């Protein structure tokens, strides 16, 4: 009995060891370095010089605009992506002939076969003046500038992150118990009411998971605003790249990246609490 327990403990340790070592060296240790750096000073020619100061944190308002831009555009882009993804997921899970389902799911993921960078380059051309604006000019909407604006960043985000949003929603819709919908119809609900009161609340966890994936990636993104925003749309990620690679103010960069982590933590916490409460309330209402 005792030895069995001991052995199982050993096995658990052995199984967890690789992941533990991995996390220690590649997550915990670097995090400690970043924390230490964030209290240091910028060396005269850039980089890090040891010190103990809170200046880097007090200086955070200097990047307030970047934080504000990110906190506006990232949630907005996540919302738009969810709105765009839901009908696709619904169609795949509920409407489509099961024979085609797998092929269509694969097609949703197909854009991932090409490098993200290449796809953004393509969008630069599509949204540039020889792309969509030139077609719109033909039908009388002249001189529309899309590329290098926040709108281009939003379009790119919806396009780029849609394949991440569809599968979680699809999964939650697919495992939805169809008998609930029959019951709802039996009780006299219109299809719209059934959708609003049964399908949507039951699939909210999928929406929440997908949104989380997209939101986290967007919050830290710098390629998308750089490419489709033309360097004019400035996210926290862009501020970080500049701090580490241009002005080489590593301590300030460390403080800003820790702030990004903190902002994400709070945002995700609030969001999850909101979603779970909504989902519970609706389900209680259904019951």
């Amino acid at each position: 009995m005792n030895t069995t327990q001991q052995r199982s403990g050993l096995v658990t340790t052995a199984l967890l060891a690789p992941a533990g070592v991995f996390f220690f060296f590649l997550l915990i240790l670097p995090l400690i370095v970043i924390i230490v750096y964030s209290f240091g000073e910028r060396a005269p020619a850039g980089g890090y010089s040891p010190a103990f100061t809170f200046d880097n944190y007090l200086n955070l308002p200097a990047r307030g605009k970047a934080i504000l831009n990110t906190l506006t555009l990232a949630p907005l882009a996540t919302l738009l992506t969810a709105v765009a993804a839901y009908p696709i997921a619904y169609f795949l899970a509920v409407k489509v002939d099961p024979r085609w389902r797998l092929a269509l799911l694969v097609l949703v993921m197909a854009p991932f076969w090409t490098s993200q960078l290449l796809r953004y380059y393509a969008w630069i051309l599509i949204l540039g003046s020889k792309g969509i604006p030139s077609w719109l000019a033909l039908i009388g909407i002249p001189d529309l500038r899309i590329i290098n604006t926040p709108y281009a960043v939003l379009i790119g985000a919806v396009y780029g992150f849609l394949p991440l949003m569809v599968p979680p929603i699809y999964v939650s819709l697919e495992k939805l118990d169809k008998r609930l919908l029959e019951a709802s119809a039996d009780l006299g609900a219109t299809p719209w009411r059934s959708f609003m009161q049964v399908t949507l609340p039951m699939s909210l966890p999928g929406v929440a998971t997908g949104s989380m994936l997209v939101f986290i990636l967007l919050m830290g993104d710098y390629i998308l605003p750089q490419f489709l925003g033309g360097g004019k749309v400035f996210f926290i990620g862009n501020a970080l790249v500049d701090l580490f690679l241009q002005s080489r103010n590593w301590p300030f960069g460390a403080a800003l990246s820790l702030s990004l982590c903190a902002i994400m933590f709070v945002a995700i916490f609030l969001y999850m609490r909101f979603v779970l409460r909504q989902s519970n309330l609706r389900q209680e209402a259904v019951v």
Partner: protein
Amino acid sequence: MTDTISTKTFLEELRRYQKGSVSRRHFLGVTGLGLATAVMAGAVPGLKPRRALAQNLSGTLNFTTWPNYFAQANFDEFTKKTGVPINVAVFGSNEEMLAKLQAGGTGWDVFVPTNYTISTYKDLGLIEPLDLKRLPNYDLSTQDPRFVSEGTIDGVVYAVPKDWGTTGYVINTKNVKSNPTTWKEFWDLTKGELTGRTMVHDYQLTTIGNALKYFGYSFNSNDEKELADAEKLLLEVKPHLFAINSDYQPSMRNGDAWMSVCWTGDAVQLNRDIPEMQYVLGREGGEIWTDYYAIPKGAQNPDAAYAFIDYILTPEVNAREVEAHGYPSTDSRTNALVPKAMLENPILYPAQDLLSNLEFGAAATLTNPLRAEIMARFKAA
């Protein structure tokens, strides 16, 4: 044995050799150093002069440079001759190169720093002194002295010049009809009729520097009041910009942008393909610069690095470089081999009255933290 020679004669000969008045062979012969080296080499093989393209090179060469900045044919030939393949990495700014070298472990063998960075690299101990004996094709006497000085610090050579250039702006005369000649016009046009069509570099040195020129201040100004004026102008201009990006060729070519801050060679390349593209050097001045070849400390393959720099500075090879990238060489031997049309091209060789107003960027301009903050505020606005 050769006769002994006095210290004074030796120094005179050394000066003559350094000025390029006599050949290396003459210098080694008359001073007896050649013979001495040969005798020593018999005993100490390490002292044997190495042939530039030695047969026993191995590994790969990691070369870090700027966009659109070399002739692929030259690199292919180097690989064919030496068996050493070249990995090219392209960077967007000197700060980025510096950041990578500061972080360490780059694996670079040769890189291309701009004049104002070399003293910083030397102070931080990130760069190797060059052994000119291993660069027989580099000849100080045929170099334009304006473009070598910053590669040599306290008499030690850390970098040898690659080419030089200016920072002006390119206009597409199909769309820009007003024939601007100043930086003032550049910014005023941007705020006015060219709204949404102008690009500036994602590089504080040139973007802030040329905004300073609007007011007639120095390109290198680190004065707080003057920088505040430049920031005010940049924030006012921001909504009118097409993009903040140092990779401006694609947008200029496809017609999205009509005017952009621009370096010599990009203007040459754009003008070669689209004759309507014209290069303007602001009358108020602006930047003149030199790019160098240098070897970072701890380079993995220094033998290949020397062989590469020596190969690329061979006049025939260097002339092919100039033809490809469109930046003028600092070496008169190379210029003798460049097509006449290029030597007469005012984009490469602007009129003297325009050149005399230009300034070399300074080390303090690049590392000034206030400038970095202004750039961040400008981009975030």
